[in-house]
């Protein structure tokens, strides 16, 4: 067992952190956010140049063959910077679906475009009444010659507005909540019958509502049994979100500890007050535990054992959810009023952390899912 980064991993981390340090200061981020797309095209290109887009794809598909550890490194750094670009939507969600479901031909076509930054993806799975259940799918897919036609509504599609192609979860058979009869499909964002309405999200990112009216689509993998691939995709995404969370949480903690040292009240730095010290320690404990469970999730992210992998993700998402809340709420409380203003970075981290809990199932959802299984330690 070895927790140290390899030389190459260290280089990856250092160069990404350097880039973000130079280009993602508070004011710079504000500018990026003010772009019509809600992010920086320049940063996007810079990531592509660094090879970040290609990272998790297999070398034979045109990728760099990175493991979940590399993804963890990248996501933690992007989390620290509160980066706005659709890396997660394109490479982790969209790319994850390609890795899990697409044919070699499809990958050969798409991965090089992702790798060079020319193709952005989104994954449309949430619906109005699905909440966090991946198998709750009302959107319909109907056979149309060699291809398919999709009809339905998708909600809160991350960066759905910026995507060139959208991977849509749709039902080829069965009732709304059947586990069978679910497929993954890829559609062109400009296709006739597809309309999308983009909007900002609470954490400064962008998402979209997407309407599909008989939209031509191509299947990724088995259109009758895509749920396992979707679950694998989301499990990988949860591990990545956990890593992002560690970045977000540790950035909040750094800001808070700095603030405690600088801010004076009643004539002393407020960091001298024991109660505030202990709250900062509670944050620290939450972060170290989050970091640990993220390592566990990362270790399990590409496991072929779907049940064990799911258990790990339930544990990680639940821990991140509750630890993130401890961290975020304390960060705001310790900053006092200024933490609640848009002028200070900490509130933006808090909002991102809060929204992560609403993605792919909140802490309660995953705690219950874990509880319905055999326990984390049974296999050991």
């Amino acid at each position, binding site marked *: 067992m070895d927790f140290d980064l390899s030389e190459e991993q260290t280089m990856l981390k250092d160069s990404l952190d350097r880039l973000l340090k130079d280009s993602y200061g508070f004011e710079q981020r504000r500018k990026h956010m003010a772009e019509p797309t809600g992010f920086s095209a320049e940063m996007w290109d810079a990531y592509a140049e660094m090879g970040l887009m290609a990272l998790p794809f297999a070398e034979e598909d045109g990728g760099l063959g990175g493991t979940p550890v590399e993804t963890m490194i990248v996501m933690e750094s992007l989390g620290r910077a509160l980066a706005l670009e659709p890396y997660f939507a394109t490479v982790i969600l969209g790319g994850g679906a390609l890795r899990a479901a697409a044919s070699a031909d499809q990958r050969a076509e798409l991965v090089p475009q992702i790798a060079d930054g020319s193709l952005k993806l989104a994954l449309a799975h949430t619906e109005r009444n699905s909440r966090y259940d991946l198998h709750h799918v009302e959107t319909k897919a109907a056979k149309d010659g060699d291809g398919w036609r999709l009809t339905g509504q998708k909600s*809160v599609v991350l960066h759905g507005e910026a995507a060139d192609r959208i991977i849509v979860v749709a039902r080829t058979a069965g009732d709304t909540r059947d586990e069978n009869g679910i497929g993954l499909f890829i559609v062109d964002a400009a296709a006739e019958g597809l309309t999308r309405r983009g909007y900002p999200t*609470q954490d400064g990112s962008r998402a979209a509502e997407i309407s599909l009216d008989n939209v031509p689509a191509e299947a990724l993998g088995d259109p009758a049994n895509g749920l396992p691939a979707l679950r694998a995709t989301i499990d990988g995404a949860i591990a990545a979100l956990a890593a992002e969370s560690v970045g977000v949480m540790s950035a909040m903690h750094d800001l808070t500890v700095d603030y405690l040292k600088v801010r004076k009240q009643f004539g002393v730095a407020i960091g001298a*007050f024991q109660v505030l010290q202990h709250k900062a320690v509670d944050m620290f404990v939450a972060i170290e535990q989050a970091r640990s469970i993220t390592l566990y999730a990362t270790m399990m992210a590409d496991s072929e054992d779907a049940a064990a992998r799911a258990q790990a993700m339930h544990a990680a998402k639940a821990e991140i959810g509750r630890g993130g809340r401890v961290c975020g709420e304390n960060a705001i409380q310790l900053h006092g009023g200024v*933490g609640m203003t848009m002028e200070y970075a900490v509130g933006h981290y808090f909002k991102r952390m*809060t929204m992560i809990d*609403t993605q792919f199932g*909140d802490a309660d959802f995953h705690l219950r899912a874990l509880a319905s299984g055999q326990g984390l330690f049974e296999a050991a």
Partner: protein
Amino acid sequence: MDLRYTSEELAFRDEVRQFLKDKLPAEIRQKLIDGEHMDKDDLVTWSRILNEKGWAVPHWPTEYGGTGWDPMRQYIYLEETQKWPAPQPLAFGVNMVGPVIYTFGNEKQKAHYLPRIANLDDWWCQGFSEPGAGSDLASLKTKAVREGDHYVVNGQKTWTTLAQHADWIFCLVRTDPEAKKQSGISFLLIDMKTPGIEVRPIITIDGGREINEVFFTDVKVPVENLVGEENKGWDYAKFLLGNERINIARVGMSKQRLARIRELAGKEMSSGRPLIEDERFREKLASVEIDLKALELTQLRVVAADAKRGNTGKPDPASSILKIKGSEIQQATTHLLMQVMGPHAMPYHSGDMDGSNELPIEPDYAATAAPGYFNFRKVSIYGGSNEIQKNIIAKAVLGL
């Protein structure tokens, strides 16, 4: 000991309920239910309806427009208005500067300001906090220098709630720079239209503009706008802050919020059925309800003790927990409400911040859930953070 409302109290409660039902405009009530901010017009409208009824300032002495209700009736009234819900009167006038004026002001001030407060002819805001002061209010730096029949005020206030609507601001200013901290502070009433005052918005993380910075540059304030004696302002401020006790728990508001959570959890689906049928969710809700029920009784104990004592003297020690527990419960409800929305808590309904006119995404009622959670982090910070509250209890109640 009789732990039930008297029949007179019950009759009074029914009267309040009927009045709210008859008189509060439906669209104002709906905004409150939806967690939206009140417009200035909404509050003016409602305040004038109340004033016409004679209920604008229930707790004031009758000679200034008060109702003469005992503390229990005042509490019932408060509770019912929060539960319905109706807008709460603008506290800066009705609960803060009003009582200061009728207690420490001169006759001319009383005659001029009090009726205008009751009718919301004047929108007041509070100029206490300053940058960097936080819970250490007395470290304020804004100066007022007497020059003939004016004070000349220079300095900055912050966290000034709804200053953008304000006609007047009541300020703590330092009139004796030599005196030690709490001494040398005076209580001034300042017309917001006076030259030299600038209001700048502070946008909060929920995207709302609720608070502001207020800058004073050589602002001339007539000496007649001094309340009470020069350099005694800290005493008046303490009096003012002491009056916040009853309202702080917001039991009625939390009841309304819990009812709202139940309602919306009946609409949002989870695992193919309404979320409200989910046992785990119901337990979380029940857990907050228990806390709130206990706090309601705590509140009633304090009110009953006040009623007995005529609202003077040392408060029941239990009153010290109202802020802590009340804010915890309020925050718990905002988190639950956000949780109800699941992934639909994510879309941001841009309001007055960036001027865009994007519409909220369905479901409409989800739009305020996350901002409500963000915004309510304030309730454990303002009015003396909960950490400060615990310091006070440790010292004043436990003798530590």
